[in-house]
């Protein structure tokens, strides 16, 4: 009797989770199918009509997108922003994280507490002052400007994560390396970086997705020649109804990269997100 009831309960749980899973999948499937339909078909009816008539699906929207100079430019801009912003954060934070964990310098403790405090500072508060600053430095509207902003606002979390990870390295290991006469630089590149690889991977993936998906920062700091995909797509959203044949494939193109990264490195990603909670 109990077993039957448990089996029934489990069946209900399964059914409930299947429904939830479908609810989660449907919006994404809707975007994908919409991206494969012509503007005329989309104006006539919803994407689910394509399930009955798969004939209306084609990759024409995507080939049109690839011929659209503004879109391809924006795609490359996204790459040109995300890759340096990720690399720089990893390098700068690894250096600082090592120093905060193992090197001695004045004000080390208060400075690190400051980093912890900066974890939650909203990006919004930096927009206006940094825009003025970049205006004076000639960085406003350029890719390096966008990159620098992302690096700065990615640093608190990055330094925090890496310092905590590096601090777990056994002291004997480092002392042995020092006894062998390795310089700090040598210890850093030969010992700390390899040992810290899991944390660095989590950080890199997390930061990459963060920058790739950003719209707000680029909306302000990039001009029309340096804008990433998100901003390019956002500018067409006003005529949402008539632009679905551009917006849907564009959105799909912009999400396929991070989703692929997510599936390729899910474990690192989940760890990064978990370490980043309370950010």
């Amino acid at each position, binding site marked *: 009797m109990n077993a039957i009831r448990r089996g029934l309960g489990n069946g209900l749980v399964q059914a409930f989770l299947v429904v939830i899973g479908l609810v989660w999948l449907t919006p994404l499937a809707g975007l994908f199918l919409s991206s494969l339909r012509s503007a005329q078909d989309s104006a006539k009816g919803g994407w689910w009509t394509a399930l009955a008539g798969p004939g209306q699906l084609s990759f024409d929207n995507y080939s049109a997108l690839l011929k659209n100079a503004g879109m391809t430019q924006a795609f490359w801009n996204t790459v040109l922003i995300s890759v340096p912003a990720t690399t720089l954060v990893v390098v700068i934070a690894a250096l600082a994280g090592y120093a905060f964990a193992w090197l001695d310098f004045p004000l080390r403790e208060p400075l690190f507490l400051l980093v912890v405090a900066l974890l939650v500072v909203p990006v919004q508060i930096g927009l206006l002052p940094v825009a003025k600053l970049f205006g004076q430095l000639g960085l406003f509207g350029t890719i390096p400007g966008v990159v620098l902003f992302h690096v700065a606002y990615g640093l608190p979390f990055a330094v925090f994560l890496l310092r905590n990870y590096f601090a777990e390295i056994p002291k004997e290991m480092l002392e042995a390396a020092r006894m062998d*006469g390795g310089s700090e630089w040598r210890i850093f590149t030969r010992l700390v970086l390899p040992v810290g690889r899991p944390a660095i991977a989590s950080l890199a993936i997390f930061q990459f997705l963060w920058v790739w998906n950003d719209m707000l920062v680029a909306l302000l700091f990039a001009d029309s020649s340096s804008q990433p995909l998100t901003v390019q797509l956002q500018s067409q959203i006003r005529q949402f109804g008539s632009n679905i044949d551009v917006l849907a494939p564009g959105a799909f193109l912009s999400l396929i990269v991070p989703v692929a990264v997510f599936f390729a490195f899910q474990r690192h990603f989940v760890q990064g997100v978990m370490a980043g909670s309370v950010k």
Partner: protein
Amino acid sequence: MTATLVKEQAGPRAAGAAPVRRRRRRARLAALLFVFPALLLLGALVVYPVLFSVGRSFFDASGTRFVGGDNYTEMFRDPATLKAIRNTTVWVVVAPALLTGLGLILAVLVEKVRWATAFKLLLFMPMAVSFLAAGIIFRLAYDEDPDKGVLNAAVVSVHDAFKGTSTYPTARGRTGLLTQERDGSYRTTAAAGGTVTLPMVGVLPGDLPRGAAPAAAGTKAAPGELRGVVYLDFTPGGGGKQGEVDPEESGLPGMRVQAQHDGKTVASTTTAADGSFRFSGLGTGSYTVRLPASNFAPPYQGVSWLGPALVTPAIIGAYLWIWTGFAMVLIGAGLATLPRETLEAARMDGANEWQIFRRITVPLLAPVLTVVFVTLVINVMKVFDLVYIIAPGPVQEDATVLATQMWLVSFGGGNNQGLGSALGVLLLLLVVPAMVFNVRRFRRSQR
């Protein structure tokens, strides 16, 4: 390598205190070089801007005149910023609690199925999707036209399944031959054993339901029976008599018909393809034949998700799609660390699943739930892209939150950087408790 090795080893033994001090100074210099890039960027692009914004918030729009706290009082007077503050409050009250609750339920349930990993991956995946893409996804899903927006398509089909569709929203009864009631129903009277015709107009021939057949005329009713036909009293191409069933005229299938006696509905039916209907088993006397108003109701169009009233809940819905996986995975990780023996012991003592959940799981998970909740509160306060993308232009002001309002005021036409800075400072002040929480938690972990 060997050269440096020998040199360094020889150093301290050969000489006294001076080289040690020099070496220490060099080590400090190296340390400073390691932290310098990070400190420079943090100082110039994070710390300085915070101070600048705080200062700027005490000056007027152009930045030339000191206005004290005026921007802050303005914030609570200006209807637009007030609306933003109110909406952000709604977000903070609703979204983190919903997400934590949903995450907890799913984390507990998913442990009971074998495909837990696949499910977690699916729900976590939206975390990798940009708010922009999610915004576009949900603009599509929330489309008000039930022929385009999947959500309204679902709502309308559920509604119609329970309430029925109205087939003839435009139809009217032929004036003079049918009486219209106040609620939009039409009626006429007939005696049992007789036949009745109900002529309708106002249906375009193209709008007739598929399968509508020419109206059936002149069938005789048996005793205790009442027969009739509901038809479109219009002959295509002209001709035909008003109020009579002409050969070219079409029946109206699927029309609901009621027979009433003494004000009570005694029978109801639906017309056939040729518009005919039949009530049998009636007593003698006079009946009212009635076409209820539901036949003519305008079709149900679903819910206006992105209208002023529902736009904020709708956007919160999109936010749930993105963040539920996060809450579930974090809470799931917490679940995995619970002591198995405690749970087993409770089961042995005959506690049911609900009691275990309520009395053991939730209290033991409290620290994890707090972290998830606090993380979500911080993120919800800063929500920008989703609102900016999903709320259609005219509804922006109904959906606005602090972050979007700060953007609008500072850069999007408002051009009041004094008020914009004040809004930025408000956002910062709201996360100060989280800042303190983080610093405390870190210092405790260091002891």
